[in-house]
């Protein structure tokens, strides 16, 4: 890795251009929050009523936090970031309903 990497949380890190990805990019972090795979969690937007799986949402990830936006109206649904404890913190935004998929059956 580059020895000149910016430290997380610094102004230099915050100035990094946000990566415009999707909900699939934050599934690793969300394994610390949800017991099921988060990509199939259905989110309903409180602002516009659109619903769909978290994997299909728009995500802006700038290393400080990942902002999960409604793909239809761009309202912020969730903000996911690292807590000081080292765990994951999740701020709920314009989410009217969150439905987790049924856990996979052992077959």
């Amino acid at each position, binding site marked *: 890795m580059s020895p000149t990497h910016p430290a997380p949380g610094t102004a230099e890190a915050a100035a990094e251009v946000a990566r415009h990805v999707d909900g699939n990019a934050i599934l*690793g972090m969300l394994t610390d929050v949800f017991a099921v795979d988060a990509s199939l969690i259905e989110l309903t937007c409180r602002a516009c009523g659109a619903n769909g799986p978290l994997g299909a949402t728009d995500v802006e990830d700038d290393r400080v936090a990942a902002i999960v936006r409604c793909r239809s109206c761009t309202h912020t649904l969730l903000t996911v970031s690292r807590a000081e404890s080292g765990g994951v913190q999740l701020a709920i935004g314009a989410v009217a309903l969150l439905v987790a998929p049924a856990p996979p059956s052992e077959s």
Partner: protein
Amino acid sequence: MIVGGWLPARVADVLPSTEHARVLRLDVPDWPGNLPGQHLDIRLTAEDGYQAERSYSIASYGPGTVVELGVDTVPDGEVSPYLTEEVRPGDALEVKGPLGAYFVWDAADPAPVQLVAGGSGIVPLLAMARARAATPDAAPFRLLYSVRSAADAMYRDEVERLAGTGVEVTWAYTRTAPEGWRGTVGRLSAASLTASAWPADRTPVAFVCGPTGFVESAADLLVQAGYDPARVRTERFGGL
């Protein structure tokens, strides 16, 4: 298959792919296997303790503890230049996964499959095509692979060989076409997409992966062509 923690991994092989991409095979002793289309997170730790994490699509599928990644260099990226330029066999890193149930092909689904890859977006789609090739009775596949030029195509030789395995391949070139190319050169258009993709009345399922702009425009074109939006699954990994 949900995995919470970080798993130790070691680089087993580093193979050349294109001028700016490599294929990495990681030996992950505790890997539980993965479905075609899933991804993992890689965590690198520098000598000073600084850590960086990124998600990478997996080109391999099924049981087994060797995980194959195709990694393209993201200019000014923090993790990919290390993985495409510096990493060597024997290097240690950590992975978390497999991740994702949304962007996964279900071999039991009889619907025809339309794959649309932009650049290194081929990686998870190749895992699906490999799984298809190993399942003779599965649904038919079509792959539209958009690259800047033939030299920019990751897994080019393997994709060429997919033709005999139940996967119809169509190439699209956005900058330079190889000599003798009869098609057009340029961004994906409604005409070029509908010329090669399954018609909507076959009720196909589509998987589209690549840079954000490419994926959004290709997914829009599929929906305009009559595809069910809920059956157009996308994975966007940044860029313009």
